[in-house]
């Protein structure tokens, strides 16, 4: 099983791990801790159903359902999503190819069933919000390890569990966040809480991992919630029907499948 960066929407909240050896905090830098999170094994391929619930400040909900597939290939990771609801985006599909070479941008296509057309789209807008949710593409895993400077700023024990507290500052001063703080479990290197600060260094959003479980020997986060504290709206993401290492065919990740559907 290969290890790889978490680079796509599909695997973004599927941060899996074996129970790694215990390493003393003082032996690890902030970058090394985050690198361990990024390099956690995620399996060769994954299939899952994603339910995303957008909740506005008055509690009104909008639900998006997506079937998604990911596969790790020689020098890239391919993923494909099929939108199932709401009805106006049904049968829309989205394909992403992410390259191991950090200097190479992702390739992305979207298939619009009403137009019967597959369009190539730019992958540069990492700060865009995904389907109107509180998650940006970067939040979902598109961000590269060395896009930020990572600093270990302390440790904390919450409910008897030890965490590293890592502050990550973007190298690009124009980036939408001035910094993030991540609480990473020392034993399994999963980030279970993350705070996002806006350009004025005010707290903007908080990500909470609500649930993770072991599937096919990997620890998979199955429920998370992003709360925009400034606008007081939230998005929850729930993964279900997760299958890992099923031997998915490479041909799943083609324009043919985008147009045909699941």
């Amino acid at each position: 099983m290969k290890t790889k960066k978490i680079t796509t929407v599909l695997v973004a909240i599927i941060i899996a791990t074996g129970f790694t050896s215990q390493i003393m905090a003082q032996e690890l830098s902030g970058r090394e801790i985050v690198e361990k999170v990024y390099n956690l094994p995620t399996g060769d391929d994954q299939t899952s159903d994603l339910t995303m619930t957008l909740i506005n400040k008055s509690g009104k909900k909008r639900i998006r359902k997506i079937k998604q597939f990911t596969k790790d290939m020689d020098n890239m990771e391919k993923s494909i999503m099929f939108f199932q609801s709401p009805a106006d985006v049904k049968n829309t599909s989205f394909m992403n190819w992410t390259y191991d070479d950090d200097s190479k941008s992702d390739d992305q296509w979207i298939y619009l069933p009403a137009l019967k057309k597959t369009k190539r789209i730019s992958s540069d807008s990492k700060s865009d919000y995904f389907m109107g949710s509180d998650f940006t593409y970067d939040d979902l895993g598109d961000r590269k390890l060395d896009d930020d400077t990572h600093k270990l700023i302390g440790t904390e024990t919450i409910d008897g569990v030890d965490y590293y507290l890592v502050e990550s500052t973007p190298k690009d001063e124009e980036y939408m966040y001035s910094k993030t703080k991540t609480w990473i479990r020392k034993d399994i290197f999963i980030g279970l809480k993350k705070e996002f600060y806006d350009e004025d260094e005010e707290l903007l959003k908080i990500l909470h991992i609500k649930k993770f479980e072991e599937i096919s020997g990997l620890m998979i986060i199955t429920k998370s919630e992003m709360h925009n504290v400034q606008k007081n709206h939230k998005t929850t993401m729930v993964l279900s029907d997760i299958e890992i290492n099923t031997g998915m065919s490479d041909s799943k990740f083609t324009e043919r499948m985008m147009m045909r559907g699941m």
Partner: protein
Amino acid sequence: MKTKGFLIAIILLTTSQFIMAQGVDINGFARNYTGILYENGEFNMLQNTLNLNFEKMGDRVAFKANPMLYLYGIDSLDFRLREIYLDLYFDNFDIRVGKQQIVWGKADGVFITDIVSPLNLTEFLLPDFDEIRIGVYAAKIDYYFGNSTIELIWKPVYAGNEFPGPGSIWYKPPEFPAPPTFDYSKEKINPSLENSEVYLKYSLSSSAIDFDLMGAYTWDQTPSMYVEKEFGFDTVTNQPGLTGLLITPEHHRLNVVGGSFTSTIKSFVVRGEIAYYNGKYFQTTDPFAEGALSQNDYLHYVVGVDYGVGHLKLSAQFIQKYIMDYNDLIDEEEFGNTMTFLARYDAMRETLHLELFSYVGLNYGDALIRPKVTYDFSDSFSIILGSNIFVGDERGMFGRYDDNSMIYTKIKYYF
């Protein structure tokens, strides 16, 4: 008409119940579309639409049927079966047989290599593009290898573009120097092997670029008007002269080759599309031209760029049609230049969408400007407020409709 509409509704209802029992997926939308002309405040559009998609997909076979009902005013019902086809899936190739819409090319809002499905232009270019295209009866085979696809289409039944007729606000009668008589005997193309159309396309999707190359042996989807002049004694002027015109709409074969590409350069998506048309007949005023027609090849191409920053998406395209071996008697410009612009802004967590799309005719300085605001009340229900504004020189293809500028609302429910 009321009886016909009632029968269609009953058939659809009973069919839907039966089909749902078979596990067929049904989705679609219902829409109310109301438009008012700026010129005189008249309702030029009172339309209710029901669009149904029946779909069933298996591992090796699938089918789709897409009936669409348009109710104009109180009881003018228009039923269209836009698509109904079967898919057969094999390891390396797929076959689709039946009435289907086929979309080619990379350009938006213009039709360069996208020539398989003809267009319903009875409301000019205003309907959504999926409603402008007419389904064609065809067999389509897609063969896949690596990231490449070869697509072969056989179209045994001719279908042409549809144009507005007298009585429509989109009908602009041509001016004739003498009273015309029309002979429609050659307009119809009978389905036969000899009259079939064939289209072939190779396409590649790669990390650097997507491109395709196409060729077609087809019919011109717009008939040429073969004109015979009738001379006699003019009773008004008491002089011999032109007394009438016999006009025979006639289709001609076209040979088309072309291609298109799209690629990304940082935040930009660039695309282009080009086609060379051989065998086109243009109207001419050349007195020696047979039938007042001139056969000239022409080149049609587009280059475009998309750019996105945050919630704002921008797009621009330049389109040119160049008629070869041109002379001034041809009833069209040698170079026909058009641009399109699109700006779209999504707000309120993608529930509010502001859009401005426009065609600009550069030859005559005319334009169609299409602002619209869409608000999604919920995941399945949206309301659109928009306008179609025609401006500029009346010789241009947009300026000629300056009396048809309108404001409209669309209320749409998806299910």
